[in-house]
């Protein structure tokens, strides 16, 4: 194979890998946020990654994260939330409530799977 052809191919494939792994248009949403009896619930689906990726929540209200799993066997079931020192393996099916306290304006809570390739964030404002 020609060297320059190979270099072009290499760069092309690198770009494709970059799009697959790093990109991902994540529009922040608050569709999954609900306030009931003075408690804010943020619902996130965990299966082959987390959805929605970015949630917008209100600051100053006690907030609970609701992790929804259904036949989740992959890494997204092994949830780590550094900010509140949460490390747990979610049940394969069901909903798990996690208390994440009261958010400050501008605060961001990150959730990750234990291997680090799936993540989500909750932005308070």
């Amino acid at each position, binding site marked *: *194979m020609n*060297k320059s052809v*190979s*270099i072009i191919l290499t760069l092309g494939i690198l770009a494709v890998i970059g799009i697959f792994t*790093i990109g991902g248009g994540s529009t922040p949403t608050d569709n999954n946020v609900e306030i009931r009896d003075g408690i804010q619930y943020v619902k996130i689906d965990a299966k082959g990654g987390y959805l929605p990726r970015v949630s917008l929540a209100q600051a100053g209200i006690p907030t609970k994260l609701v992790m929804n799993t259904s036949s989740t*066997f992959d890494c997204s079931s092994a949830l*780590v939330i*550094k900010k509140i020192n949460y490390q747990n393996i979610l049940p394969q099916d069901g909903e798990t409530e996690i208390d994440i306290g009261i958010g400050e304006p501008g605060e961001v809570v990150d959730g990750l799977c*234990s291997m680090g390739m799936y*993540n989500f964030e909750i932005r308070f404002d």
Partner: protein
Amino acid sequence: MNKYTLHVSGTHCASCKILIEDILGEQDFIKNSEVNLKKETVFLESDKGIDELIEVLNEKIQNHKYVFSREKNVAKPTDDIIWRALPLGLGVLALFFFLQKSGVLNIGIGGGVTATTSFIIGLIASVSTCLAIVGGLVLSLSAKISEDNVSDTKTFTLFHLGRLVSFALLGGVLGTAGGAIGINFTLTAILGLVSAFIMLLLGLNLVGVLAKNKIALPSGIFKFFRNIEHKTLTPLIVGFATFFLPCGFTQSMQVSALSSGSFVSGMIIMLAFALGTLPMLALLSFGSASFANSRHAPLFFKSAGVVVIGLGLFAILSGLAGLGIISPIFNI
């Protein structure tokens, strides 16, 4: 006694010096052999004539892919191989990440965890992101061992055996212990980082970045590593250690085993899972061994090196993010 300086080709690693000198030392018609890796020559003393000597020695050493000759063999232009290996290896990586992104692997399996479901989950896990760590490690070790010592399938067999047995036993232990113990996330993350670094090193070595400067460490150190590589226990222990490598699928199976409540059921879950991962991992390791014998061997090793480096980098960056050291980069 005649003194000869022969050319030797195929010396790709520093331990080759030890191996060749060992083999030459076993021949009673040879005295004082010394390999010079830099010049790719071997100095020796023997009673035999040079042509006979070369013929006899090549016969003895052909299993190891070295060739003795009178004149220096003109090295094949191997630099071009990296330019074929680079797009090839990256193509494999792109395909892998595409598969993850496509969601094909998020197959739902309803109901409780039985032996059948955990077998299927094992099959899925072996082509999932877990492949980045467990598979990457298997590929890099297998390719490295195959490159050093062709047709050493015993090592792989022991590795897979160690993996199956330890999954079964540790699964049983989890089943017995119930909720008393948990698998520590931080510990698995650190183990994952260690294996990612090993992959990166082996990958660089396979590609040939590190091979260019064959730093001649004292031969004692190489003898030590060579002995480790060929000990029966080492592949068994590495197989055992894969139980603790970070892999979401393994972790959720471990939890299923934990909650299964008995030794036998925990054992069955983990064994079925390990059996499910076996086809892919066996393909990686025995595939490397058979490629090592083909004429595409240099291309295979370099492409494997590119794949392993890519997976290693992915695993390191993800692992650091998992530990909260850097902010997450990937989201596949």
